[in-house]
């Protein structure tokens, strides 16, 4: 390994010995690629021509008026595939090609990362197998179909709780078996080095664009930058270029049914450092180190771990993490839909809900008056809208029976 893969005491490569050569090869390929102008140009071209970058920032006038505070979105919902995921799967798939790999594998929870990886399988003509908890295969039948439509195999994982965590376990096992010709296309900034740094590197484009766009459109930097945190990839991607600025960084975790109920996924808020899936980071675990089950209305945030860089940012106090409940997120989902005509992913709705709380707090600080939000553009809240809500319609329908009524 050329790097130590640490963020303070977090990160590392806690994997079975058998995976080390693959990680070393990957790190090396990535470190070379990121300096290679051809690779960079090709990735940039794909991000633009295939994925539709840059994505805009959108000033939400209605939401701002309603909250009395300027709210701006970074629109990753407009990326091909419907979420920020595409940014980094493009990078990894290009890297896999470069390394001469013949096959991609990936884990998926609700299916979003699986769909993103399936897109890459199609685009790069690579045999692709997606591990997905059997329970999730049942729950997310449409995404399973979507993946198969793109020609990939979806392998249901029956072991454990048969959800995301188990799909990762299974993908790691597959990788250990087929490590020579297979690239494990991990879905977030978690996992062993180099994944956390590499995925962050590919996602960094979010914040890079946003910072420039904000400056150009409104001058200066936002006061607060807010993103939801599952594994943490969209958050890191958005935060990265704001770390050297004055902007306060906020990560929003899923409080599920409430932090006290135990049914949540607030890894940074309620967890403690531990080792899972290759890295030392905050974890939700019991007193013996067994990983506990999590809950969130948003499948993409329903994960007991978190990327090690977030653990570092938390301990360094450069970013602040707090959690919002399922109900808060659903309300924010409705709020953004009704006030701007933008339906966020339930994951992203957590960021919106967090931003709403911050807006209220900021307003209270200046005396609670609602007027003249335009005067505070220099104090705007920039929200990472990591994805769109199309995938969440069935879930939302279930939670808003009063809005339902057509059909079924």
């Amino acid at each position, binding site marked *: 390994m050329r790097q130590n893969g640490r963020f303070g005491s977090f990160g590392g490569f806690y994997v079975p010995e058998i995976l080390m050569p693959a990680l070393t090869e990957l790190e090396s390929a990535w470190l070379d690629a990121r300096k290679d102008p051809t690779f960079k140009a090709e990735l940039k071209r794909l991000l633009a021509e295939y994925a539709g970058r840059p994505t805009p920032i959108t000033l939400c006038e209605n939401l701002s008026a309603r909250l009395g505070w300027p709210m701006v979105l970074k629109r990753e919902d407009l990326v091909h595939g419907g979420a920020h995921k595409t940014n980094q799967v493009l990078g990894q798939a290009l890297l896999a090609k470069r390394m001469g790999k013949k096959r991609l594998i990936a884990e998926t929870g609700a299916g979003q990362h699986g769909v993103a990886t399936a897109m890459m399988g199609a685009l790069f003509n690579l045999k692709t197998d997606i591990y997905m908890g059997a329970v999730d295969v049942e729950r997310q039948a449409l995404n399973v179909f979507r993946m198969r439509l793109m020609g990939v195999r979806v392998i249901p994982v029956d072991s454990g709780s048969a959800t995301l965590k188990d799909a990762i376990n299974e993908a790691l096992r597959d990788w250990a078996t087929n*490590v020579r010709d297979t690239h494990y296309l991990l879905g977030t900034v978690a996992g062993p080095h180099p994944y956390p740094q590499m995925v962050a590197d590919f996602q960094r484009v979010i914040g890079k664009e946003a910072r420039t766009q904000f400056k150009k459109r409104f001058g200066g930097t936002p006061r607060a930058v807010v993103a939801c945190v599952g594994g943490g990839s969209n958050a890191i991607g958005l935060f990265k270029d704001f770390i050297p600025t004055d902007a306060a960084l906020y990560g929003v975790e899923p409080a599920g049914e409430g932090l006290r109920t135990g049914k949540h996924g607030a890894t940074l808020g309620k967890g403690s450092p531990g080792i899972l899936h290759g890295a030392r980071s905050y974890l939700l675990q019991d007193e013996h*180190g067994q990983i506990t089950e999590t809950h969130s209305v948003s499948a993409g945030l329903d994960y007991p771990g978190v990327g090690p860089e977030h653990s570092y940012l938390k301990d360094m106090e450069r970013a602040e993490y707090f959690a919002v409940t399922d109900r808060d997120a659903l309300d924010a989902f409705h709020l953004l839909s009704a006030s701007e005509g933008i339906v966020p992913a339930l994951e992203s709705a957590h960021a919106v809900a967090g931003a709403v709380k911050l807006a209220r707090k900021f307003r209270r600080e200046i005396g609670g008056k609602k007027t003249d939000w335009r005067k505070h553009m220099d104090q705007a809240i920039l929200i990472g809208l990591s994805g769109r809500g199309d995938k969440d319609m069935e879930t939302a329908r279930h939670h808003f029976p009063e809005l339902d009524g057509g059909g079924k």
Partner: protein
Amino acid sequence: MSRDRYAETFDRLAERGEGAFVPFTVLGDPNAKTSLEILRAMAAGGADMLELGIPFSDPVADGPTIQAADIRALKAGITPPKAFDIIRKFRKENDDIPIGLLVYANLVHEPGLVKFYEEAAAAGVDSILVADVPLEESAPFRWVGEKTGIGHVSMVTPLTDDARLAETAKLGGPYLYVVSRLGVTGRDTSLSKSAKPLLRRIKKQGGPPTLLGFGISKPEHVCAAIAAGADGAISGSAVVEIMQKHAGDRAKMATSVRRFVAAMKKATKFGK
């Protein structure tokens, strides 16, 4: 803990011209009481050393068979302290057989390395293999192992290149866990072809004795492993499968495990 049970055992085996047979089981599978009986059955069957897993929620290095054992044990309420209890009880009856632990890093990390290793040592454990700790992350585990008298077991695989092999061999430890093939634990029908050249490469480096693992499920495999130059063979999934097969009948389970171990042990005598 000043006895070096591994060295004693390897010496004795060498004298006898035998290889070691090392059965694996998950502590607490399917419950604490039965598990203790399984340990006894293994010893009775002639096991030279034991390799014991502490059940973990996310055993990424293991295949479905062992994961199922982990789940059964966890369902039975087995925690690391309870797993140590089983070892402690067994150790009282048998002070000679080397006992190795197979754990995942977080089980060690959560209580703290020192505490975990001290408790393991107190229970009678001789070595620890942390399945998700490769060479690069091993320093603190080795260090604490040294302080607490617990041997650090490293793994080598068909993908380990010579430089890394040399580095690993240099670290010593009671034995090297030689992974016979790519992948995770689980049964195979024949011994992997990659085992032989790997063992040959290891031999060149010197270093601790070698135990070959992954896919050892028949006496032929043991024979072949030893013939290929291993100092012994570890069999996990096969043991767990036997236990699973007799899930309803504790007595039968123990007898079958004992018979299996005996058959496998026998094969260690014909390898060399």
